[in-house]
């Protein structure tokens, strides 16, 4: 039980930190401060425009794979992983 609680807490910590990144790249960079970011450029992109139409999507993909990788490690560490 103790073990399960620790596993769950570690899971929540990982999840919340990834969701923080998710929120920053989409809602903050892509919407809230998009006009301010647009004064900077990334190649031919205005930076805010890039975040809202390209960058946020790339980060979303990376977030899921980081989650998968860290969770699989967590499962093993707490010995709750599935048998093959």
């Amino acid at each position, binding site marked *: 039980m103790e073990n399960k609680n620790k596993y769950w807490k570690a899971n929540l910590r990982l*999840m919340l930190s990834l969701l923080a990144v998710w929120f920053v790249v989409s809602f903050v960079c*892509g919407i809230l401060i998009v006009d301010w970011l647009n004064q900077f450029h990334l190649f031919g992109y205005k930076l805010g425009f890039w975040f809202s*139409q390209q960058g946020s999507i790339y980060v979303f993909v990376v977030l899921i794979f980081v989650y998968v990788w860290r969770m699989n490690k967590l499962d093993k560490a707490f010995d709750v992983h599935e048998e093959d």
Partner: protein
Amino acid sequence: MSAQLLTYLFVGASFALYIGIAIWSRSASTSEFYVAGSHVSPVANGAATAADWMSAASFLSMAGIIAFEGADGARYLMGWTGGYVLLALLLAPYLRKFSKFTVPDFVGDRYYSHTARLVAVVCVMFISFTYVAGQMRGVGVVFSRFLEVDINVGVIIGMGIVFLYAVWGGMRGITYTQVAQYCVLIFSYLVPAIWISIILTGNPLPMLGLGSEMNDGTGQYLLDRLDGMTTELGMTAFTDGSKSTIDMFCITAALMAGTAGLPHVIVRFFTVPKVRDARISAGYALIFIALLYTTAPAVAAFARINIINTVEGISYTVAPEWFHKWEDSGLVAWLDKNHDGKVQYRGGAAMSPAAPNFTGARGEQGQRTVSNAPTDNENELYIDRDIIVLAHPEIAKLPNWVIALVAAGGLAAALSTAAGLLLVISTAVSHDLLKKTLMPHITDKQELLFARIAAAVAVGVAGLVGIYPPGFVAQVVAFAFGLAAASFFPVILLGIFSTRMNKEAAIAGMLAGLVFTAAYISWFKFIDPAASTPAHWWFGISPEGIGALGMLLNFAVSFVVMRITPPPPQEVVDIVEHIRVPRA
């Protein structure tokens, strides 16, 4: 070969492939029919999820919306991909561990209540039928434009194909057909995009081409060129938005939560063998989806440049062939306000109302005349946004086989989504309504038969809606996402992350979210559409984005009600503890 002959060839070949897969993958039990026996590999499930998810709206409409709205189009790009992060981190692994067949299954068991299950069934049916109507219509439109058959004949052919593999093959048939359909749709989306990217920028990757310099020796960035062109013509610059920040925020949030709460997407994660597979499968799904979504803004910008370059200031009589063809289809209209015989493309709507009502007569230049009143701006051109993806290969003068390919891709996108939705509808009837509520004693064989009958009836109804589309189909799409965000998402989320969450809170929360969201949308869409302006909206939030507020309301009501009502029984707390760990 002509574009039409090639289209017959490509569409025929892809349909033969889908039917072959259907025959090969017949379902023999309810478990195979509902969740493909949970034997689908994570990569295959990722591709199937991507095809399931990307509908006629993603394939045909999205790039067109971005082409004309520019920066505002980001709400769809972020909303329809960001939802997968929520799905992967918050829902998919736990629902897989729960290991049942449907979303109402989870709601019914977790909240130990038939009422909750029935509320969920009603939501599933409403969301799915709303969605499927648009798909069938999309099939009809592609058929009528490219194969020159009647729209209704197109819908019936589409129904026949879906009937074959959904009713016969169930989830097993649908899954493997969707994998094939994903390949067809992504190939047909990327080929013209890559081609045009090379022509305009010399960069073969459209996502990078969009940020590159023009290929014409000027050294000017493509987006700067487009911003310049649009501003010069009195339009909003492509990289500027015109929606308010709060509205963009709420719409994006509603689309994300709605995506994560859509039953036909969630159910796909029941088809993989393990919790681990559900996690990685969401990652594969998002890669497959991102391939199209990061290309769409490039397609949009390229198309906008090409349209302006090929029609602005040109005499109507020498306008390119695509212009006349789409005018014949009624999706392009030209109102020669200054009688100079030239197409003048500017900002603002050319006519009022914005969509043309053709009179049936031809004007002095041979153009189709309209009965709409001219507006007092200089714009003379109406272009339907939905034609961009279908027309941009023609606009860029690509060969006929590319045009035929796009038609096959559009059909794949519409059919794959329709099949996934129809399966969810049939499962809700045979499993949740009959087996779990009304007729608990039927055998697996009988349940399977009912599932097939329900799927067949659902195909028929979807086809009818496609043939006689109720005028409000376009408006109710906001409904589907708003309702999924305001009902399912909070209830499933709290069901996993709170052991205190009980039946009273779930039902109260779902009803509050649903009634609020539905009332707000109905008011501005049906009862008083004239008042649907930012000045009248609550906090400036449009009906499209109100699901975000409905979701907050659902959470708030749930928190209050669960504090003042008895906690859930111990066996339900045990279920929650059980789904939180992969092996237990």
